């Protein structure tokens, strides 16, 4: 079976008679829930069965069946396999589905995304606006019947390339002013429509001052062009003096509809595209995607490949955390000295990636059933040198350099607190969740690959403030060094590919959700195949994006100067937020 689902043993349909039925489509698993009783079911799931963590919400457009489906993945923060449930609604414009935000507030941004890209209206959502596309955009681009201007073909490879492929440069048919479609009756020349109106309306939660003083709230926009937002990210804040009353992240400036591209690509073509999600940790992205497709294909990578994968994923985690630590210190005002100390070590790790995969950042190294090539000669000694000699010493040096610093302590300790309850509620993942006292790590909670063979501790800190999020990253680097050291010692000989390399893999129909503990949190890939060379649905559960759900709640009540520090401590990469 493509998707072993131990949850089936738990007889949910007997517990909720008339509410849900098992999903019996071949290759699928989980439960179909009665639309009208979704809220009741979700509440019971969270409160009685302990599935307190909503990992992913996404939609699927089954155009041939005339249906839309919303897919939910829930987990227990105490560990164990998850549960998938779905609701189906007839395809209309717009499709209406009850919102889960009242039960799982972590669904907020994800439901907005599903509304934006699929046109699914979540009734009861507190702030249902577009999120990645702009207000006034025509249509919902992830729908299968939506085509961009100059649409060429439904799936790659494009017929114009071979056997009669005389080059036509893209720009020659994509001229300025002629590459965009507007909604009916929308004239950009004479528009009076203010795209920011909806945003500001959502922000104003004006209350009268309890002292009766006449102080006005002001709205300040930080970004999108601001050095501390780590990219083209914008934060709209409502201020009362210096205190933050409300805050909304505004994103989508780097949006390229990764998922639509992914649904036109063949399975293997998506591998290099995943590098571009969180471009600081491409190996982890490869890992998640490879796991999802391998689940569908029912392939197991070879032993040696598994070890190489784990080594690469942990090196990525170290490289990413070094970058995160450096960037956070930049945000706190320690301009570039800590950043460069961290980058030096990161460079040495990237040298290894370059020698192994051919590229420092866009690694494209994993394949279905293994990795692209074996470790070239001379790489393993280099890894040993780094991980047994240099890195442990250097991490301690950076730690000594920073953690005792009074400025960092006073700006970090007790600032930007996310409580444990809130962290679960808002579906925070990775270091953000573990700094709040929840020892939840996918590598331990739901082990994948060969993580059950290594000795390492799940890092946890309890205060949930900026300082703890910094310290969790230091601790995680130490644990990753431990894992790589063990993997180097145990690395077996043998092939690195379980399959014959094929440029078009055959993927049996079905669904799969592959998730890994990425450096930024739980990175999930939800892939649906219908047996064709391209996936029918390709969804990325992006940790950077979902971690931003808790950004507002963390900041409310803080001073405006702390926004930048909190954002730095969440550690986002805009390639992944905007996708």
């Amino acid at each position, binding site marked *: 079976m493509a998707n072993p689902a131990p949850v089936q043993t738990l007889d949910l349909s007997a517990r909720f008679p008339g509410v849900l039925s098992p999903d019996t489509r071949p290759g699928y698993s989980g439960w179909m829930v009665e639309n009208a009783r979704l809220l009741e079911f979700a509440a019971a799931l969270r409160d009685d069965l302990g599935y307190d963590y909503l990992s992913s919400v996404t939609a699927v457009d089954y155009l041939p069946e005339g249906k839309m489906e919303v897919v939910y993945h829930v987990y227990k923060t105490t560990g164990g396999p998850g549960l998938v449930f779905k609701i189906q609604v007839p395809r209309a414009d717009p499709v209406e589905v009850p919102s889960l935000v009242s039960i799982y507030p972590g669904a907020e941004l994800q439901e907005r995304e599903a509304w934006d890209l699929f046109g699914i209206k979540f009734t009861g959502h507190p702030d249902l606006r577009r999120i990645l596309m702009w207000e006034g955009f025509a249509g919902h681009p992830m729908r299968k019947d939506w085509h961009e201007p100059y649409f060429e073909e439904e799936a790659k490879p494009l017929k114009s390339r071979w056997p009669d492929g005389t080059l036509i440069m893209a720009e020659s048919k994509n001229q300025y002013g002629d590459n965009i479609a507007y909604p009916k009756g929308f004239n950009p020349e004479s528009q009076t429509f203010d795209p920011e109106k909806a945003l500001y309306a959502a922000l104003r939660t004006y209350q009268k001052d309890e002292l009766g003083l006449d102080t006005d709230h002001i709205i300040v926009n930080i970004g999108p062009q601001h050095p501390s937002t780590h990219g083209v990210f914008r934060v709209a804040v409502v201020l009362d003096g210096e205190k933050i009353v409300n805050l909304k992240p505004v994103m989508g400036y780097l949006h390229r509809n990764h998922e639509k591209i992914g649904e036109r690509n063949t399975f293997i073509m998506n591998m290099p595209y995943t590098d571009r999600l969180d471009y600081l940790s491409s190996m982890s992205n490869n890992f998640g995607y490879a796991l999802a497709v391998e689940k569908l294909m029912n392939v197991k990578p070879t032993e040696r490949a598994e070890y190489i994968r784990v080594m690469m994923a942990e090196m990525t985690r170290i490289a990413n955390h070094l970058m995160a630590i450096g960037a956070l210190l930049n945000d706190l005002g320690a301009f570039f000295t800590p950043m460069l100390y961290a980058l030096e070590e990161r460079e*040495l790790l990237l040298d290894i990636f370059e020698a192994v995969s051919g590229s420092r950042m866009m690694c494209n190294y994993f394949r279905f059933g293994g990795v692209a090539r074996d470790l070239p000669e001379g790489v393993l000694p280099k890894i040993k040198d780094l991980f047994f000699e240099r890195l442990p010493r250097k991490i301690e040096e950076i730690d000594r350099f920073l953690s005792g610093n009074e400025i960092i302590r006073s700006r970090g*300790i007790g600032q930007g607190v996310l409580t444990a309850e809130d962290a679960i509620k808002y579906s925070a993942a990775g270091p953000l969740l573990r700094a709040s006292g929840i020892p939840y790590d996918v590598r331990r909670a739901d082990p994948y690959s060969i993580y059950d063979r290594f000795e390492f501790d799940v890092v946890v800190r309890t205060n949930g403030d900026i300082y703890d999020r910094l310290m969790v990253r230091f601790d995680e680097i130490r644990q990753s060094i431990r894992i790589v050291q063990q993997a180097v010692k145990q690395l077996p000989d043998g092939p690195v590919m379980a399959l014959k390399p094929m440029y078009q893999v055959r993927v049996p129909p079905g669904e799969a959700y592959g998730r890994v503990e990425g450096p930024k949190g739980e990175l999930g890939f939800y892939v649906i195949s219908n047996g064709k060379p391209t996936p029918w649905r390709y969804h990325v559960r992006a940790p950077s994006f979902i971690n931003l759900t808790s950004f507002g709640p963390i900041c409310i009540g803080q001073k405006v100067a702390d926004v930048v520090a909190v954002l730095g401590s969440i550690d986002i990469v805009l390639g992944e937020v905007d996708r």
Partner: protein
Amino acid sequence: MHDMYGKGILKGLGVSLKRFAETYLDDLVWLGKRYRTDKGISHRLSKDARGIFTVQYPEEKIPVPEEFRFVPFLVYDEGPNGEKPLRCTSCGICAKVCPPQCIWIVRSTDPVTGRPIPDPAKFFVDGDICMNCGLCAEFCPFDAIKMDHDYELASFTRNVYDITMLSKSAGYYESIRPANAKREDAARAAKAATRIGQAE
């Protein structure tokens, strides 16, 4: 929280000072050979590196590893009489696996019969669309398309390469990727030997 009275800052400054001193110490140890020499550069990329890391590009260049990949090129074998037959058979696998679809191939046809011949008439790589993923080189069954090492591509126009610009010799390929070339040559020879064996 503030019971350290600035001791933490002083400790941090100590780290900075140590690293500052190491820069000059390492310069002295290497006596001017630390910069602009291959040995100096590889020392600065090793586990023992301390002090200034920066490589002064373009005066200094970091050697690229064998697997390093940049925009693809087409390999031709050098014949004894100066002919340059491309290994490419215009089978189109590279164009079909290319994620951003930057490879365009026109297949040759026999002028008499109109049947396709295994030889590309035109071959384009749109270098500005290429994402340097290396899938074309990985899945080419004839070792005909390979990834280059030349990363200095700045130009005043679009980087679109046609068949003449793409063609490079097997000798060049061997010079940039010796281990790969050796392995592939051996595999090709073995394959040819079995084919001859079967024919007999």
